[in-house]
């Protein structure tokens, strides 16, 4: 793989760069739309109990599979539960999975990447071979196997996707570390007698954080899709959890006539993922001017 990394800017320069980046992200209408969607999602997940018209878990079998109406804007599912309320509460699940997975995968990958990039040699070879191993296999299928081994629950979905996703972050952290370790300020710290642990924590880690945060935010949409896919094939959340992938799967049987059972949760997933993708696209645009749509 490519060991050479372009010169990495210093921390203060990065900070200024980050601010400029944020300003430009807000100026771009597409990424602004993405931010608004994600903001709405956050808001809904907090106030779900206040705005949901029904309890997401209470069944009302006599009113099962009712078409969308004034009483049930998105209709009811096979057990008579209100689909709109379930979708509103489902925001909490999707957000929790996305955020926890992003955090755990980064916490697993970043330290390994830092250590392997800084010390090189045997450790580096070992870590890289382990990431090869994980990357020799499709992420979703690996997550399926892990989720099945751990029993399908929401917490285990997070663990499964994190375990399948960390190698990419380890590699990114390693690549950035390889560049930083040759910088003058790291050299200076070493000359002053700083321990490797201190150099990694104080001088290198801060420079690794921002590329990692950007990468994780680019991956958020993918994480939500993977989690929904796991729910759909039965390796994720279990009934009666209002998880969107699971809701689509529950509506599969009724797709011929009661189309609303699967359709609305799918729109919810698409919208949230679209929000993350719009934001990510804006960020990528700014980082890689070649992809920019208008000369700027």
């Amino acid at each position, binding site marked *: 793989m490519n060991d050479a990394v372009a010169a990495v800017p210093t921390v203060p320069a990065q900070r200024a760069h980050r601010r400029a980046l944020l300003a430009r992200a807000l100026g771009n209408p*597409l990424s602004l739309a993405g931010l608004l969607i994600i903001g709405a999602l956050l808001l809904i997940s907090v106030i779900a109990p206040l705005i949901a018209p029904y309890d997401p878990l209470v069944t009302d079998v006599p009113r099962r599979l009712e078409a969308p109406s004034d009483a049930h804007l998105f209709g009811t599912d096979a057990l008579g539960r209100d689909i709109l309320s379930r979708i509103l509460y489902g925001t909490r699940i999707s957000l929790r999975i996305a955020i926890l997975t992003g955090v755990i995968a980064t916490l697993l990958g970043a330290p390994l990447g830092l250590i392997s990039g800084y010390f090189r040699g045997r450790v580096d070879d070992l870590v890289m*071979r*382990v990431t*090869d*191993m994980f*990357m*020799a*296999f*499709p*992420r*979703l*299928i690996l997550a*399926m*196997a*892990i989720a*099945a*081994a751990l*029993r399908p629950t929401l917490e285990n979905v997070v663990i499964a996707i994190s375990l399948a996703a960390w190698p990419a972050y380890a590699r990114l952290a390693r690549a950035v570390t390889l560049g930083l370790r040759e910088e003058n300020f790291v050299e200076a710290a070493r000359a002053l007698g700083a321990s490797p642990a201190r150099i990694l924590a104080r001088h290198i880690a801060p420079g690794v954080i921002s590329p990692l945060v950007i990468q994780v935010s680019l991956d958020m*949409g993918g994480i939500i*899709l993977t989690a*929904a*896919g796991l729910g*759909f*094939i*039965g*390796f994720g959340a279990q009934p009666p959890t209002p998880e969107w*992938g699971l809701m*689509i799967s529950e509506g*599969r049987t009724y*797709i*011929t006539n009661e*189309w609303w059972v*699967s*359709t609305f*949760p*799918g729109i919810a*997933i*698409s*919208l949230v*993922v*679209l929000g993350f*993708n*719009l934001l990510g*696209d804006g960020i990528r645009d700014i980082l890689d001017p*070649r*992809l920019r*749509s*208008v*000369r700027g």
Partner: protein
Amino acid sequence: MWAYIVRRVALASLAIAGVLVIVFFLSHIIPGDPVAAILGPQAPNDVIEDLRRRWGLDRPVHEQFVRFVVRLARGDLGDSLATHRPVIRDLREFFPATFELATAAILIGALTGLAVGVVSAVARGRPLDHAVRFLSLIGLSMPVFWLGLILLYIFYYRIPLLPGPGQLDIFIARPPWVTGMITVDALLARDGGALINALGHLLLPAVVLGSHALVGIARITRASMLEVLGQDYVKVARAKGLAERTVILKHALRNGLLPIITVIGIYYGGLLEGAVLTETVFAWPGLGRYATSAILSQDFAAIMGVTIVIALIFSLANLIVDLAYGLLNPKIRYE
């Protein structure tokens, strides 16, 4: 270059061996007893015990692993606990369906993606470019399994234009097994009716599976074209008075193709992942569904078999991508 290939194959084998170890131990810590699950709740305990002993499931996990490796070295993947047939036979039967689906998907994705990418690069900054960009973001955001369900609903239930799930209508005889891919077998058997029906069945799942690849290929095509269109030789070609069409297709696209081909290869390997979900929605009897049911029923031998096949395909696809890169760009040297 050969030294490079040997090194890559060695590294890939190491990685695959690692995957096998991980998956073996993972699948053996799945809580529950596959034997009890197969025999049902009424089975007497001594029958369960007997079967467990016969399949070697009463041995410690590490002993089972050694047995697995010894058997694997002889090319024996064992028998599936669920289908009671050699896993090799199962794989041979399920693989062609996935290969057929993935190939159709990448053909649709690559051809459409190239066209869309070139058009939006040429229309850069104009409304068409923005529309394509927005639509492709929406396409990337939809879960494939949901897109599959919705398309089935529209084109099968609502407006019955296309046949439904599965590979063939039940009243159509399956052409004799040659490659296992129904469209190819129907072609070989000169069975026009079966061919048309099979193509109809193939269309929706292939579009769904290829949708993410389409968007990815369109994006990289656009980016690559934009870069090439700014080069001096393109200006020269234009200055010479060549038709815009010739400039774009002969001068620009041909040179911009390198990164595009790499991405096509990457997506081809990645289709396995989407295949799990697409095959579930369309009742497509392929590897993805085989893997899912193997994991769900704790069918150890089948899990290991399908793991080997998937890891092999995945690694092979990556290797081919890297080699293709070198063939297309002589500036790249392998060490």
